[in-house]
């Protein structure tokens, strides 16, 4: 079963992250690199991407003639996606364990401790035939 682990933060979280002291920053970067390698070594890795900071994030809607209308004003509480990992594991329990490991990534200041990681199942094809 495939699961996506999502890491999110508000704009304030991203700004605080950008202010981390060198030591904390390096510890975090090293952890992320090791974490991806761990997933690969365990044979569960499917994909991962990190996203650019939300500074330039835009909300786009279709206007007249499907012309894009962009808006860059977001409520302060808005959670932005920072990055995700897709893993292929035996079941939800294994996904939770891996998410907890990610949650314990080294932080800094007020962001030290356990970071919330959202775990979502990635949809698959058709299930076992239901006999109706």
């Amino acid at each position, binding site marked *: 079963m495939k699961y996506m682990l999502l890491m999110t933060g508000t704009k304030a979280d991203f700004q605080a992250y950008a202010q981390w002291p060198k030591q904390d920053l390096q510890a975090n970067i090293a952890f992320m690199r090791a974490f991806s390698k761990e997933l690969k070594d365990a*044979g569960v890795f499917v994909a991962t991407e990190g996203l650019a900071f939300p500074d330039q994030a835009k909300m786009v809607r279709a206007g007249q003639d499907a012309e894009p209308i962009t808006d860059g004003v977001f409520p302060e509480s808005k959670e932005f996606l920072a990055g995700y990992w897709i893993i292929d594991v*035996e079941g939800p329990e294994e996904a939770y364990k891996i998410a907890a490991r990610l949650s314990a990534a080294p932080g800094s200041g007020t962001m030290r401790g356990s970071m919330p990681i959202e775990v979502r199942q990635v949809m698959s094809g058709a299930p076992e*035939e239901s006999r*109706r």
Partner: protein
Amino acid sequence: MDIPIERLLRELTPQVLGAIVRRFGDFAAAEDAVQESLLAAAMEWPREGLPDNPRSWLTQVASRRMVDQIRSESARRRRENETALEAARTSQSRAADLREDDALVLLFMCCHPALTLSSAIALTLRAVGGLSTAEIAHAFLVPEATMAQRISRAKQSIKSSGIRFQLPTPEERAQRLRAVLHVLYLIFNEGYTTSTGPNLVRTELSHEAIRLTRMVHKLQPDDTEVAGLLSLMLLTDARRLARTNAEGELIPLAHQDRALWNQEQIAEGVALLSATLPKGSVGPYQLQAAIAAIHDEATQAHDTDWPQILALYDLLRRMSGNPMVALNHAVASAMVHGPAKGLELLDVLQADTRLADHHRLDAVRAHLLELTGDRAEAARCYRAAAGKTGSLPERNYLLTQAARLSANEAS
């Protein structure tokens, strides 16, 4: 690659691997060497034509790889591994020794309970099925490096658990064979249940599972559960073309175009099952095959012999603690005794923690509620099921059912 050559290579894989493992002992290295020989054959044979004896061709190429590897390791360690080299030298002269049950021994190794199911599946497909890592990765929609890692970890587990290249003891045999059948069943399901529309790669997994189960059946013709599983696969796979439409949308059994069912496969599955059931010792796979056969033999959905299906689910339920069996039993009860009886049984199942959060419970409840005429509650249950399923085609199906009922409600 040429289809006949590919088929031949897959058939020869366990035979060649068996011979190499018996000669050199090291399963992990032998498996790599055999993969290399398959690759060499896949490149050379279409160009140069089939060798006179394809099996000994592969065995020789794989042996040579093993010898090369042992030599280079010996050089590195600066000491000769005399026994292994001796074995290697004699291997060239000895006729390729074929042992019929090598494939079975390999299956017992690859499906050993010490391995996780996903690694057992991957290793079985490569070592016994002869599929390349890239093909397996593609079928399971994961990167090739991830699949390679999974296979290498499976081999490490075999090594560290001290699993030997030999048949299990008579005391262990039945249980170990069940583990093999379970892995083959999972491979089949992976291909059957998740292949929608033109996704042929995954369809191939079902065909591969059928081929391997056929092979086990040939080696163990008297085992009734092996025959039962093969029959179940044939009877289920026979409906493949009818279970989704061109857009990949699910079509429930009752609405399938039965003209699309593969009659040849149904006839084979039924004949196999009919020859097996009288032998006695009826197990879960035979019962499931018998249920599939009843569905397959009904020319129209309303001709389905539900009382007989109910009787079979009754037996199956006594045999297995699987909550899905209990759920299907409730469906069959509803078909025989009416939806109220089915709903009554569902209320009991609701207490089972393994089912309480399962979308199938809600989906079945929705279907039965619709039969009682309670459309609003049925729509609510279809939506609850949609929220829980991990399958996109099924979610689309469930939401469409809910929308259909709500639209009728409004009109």
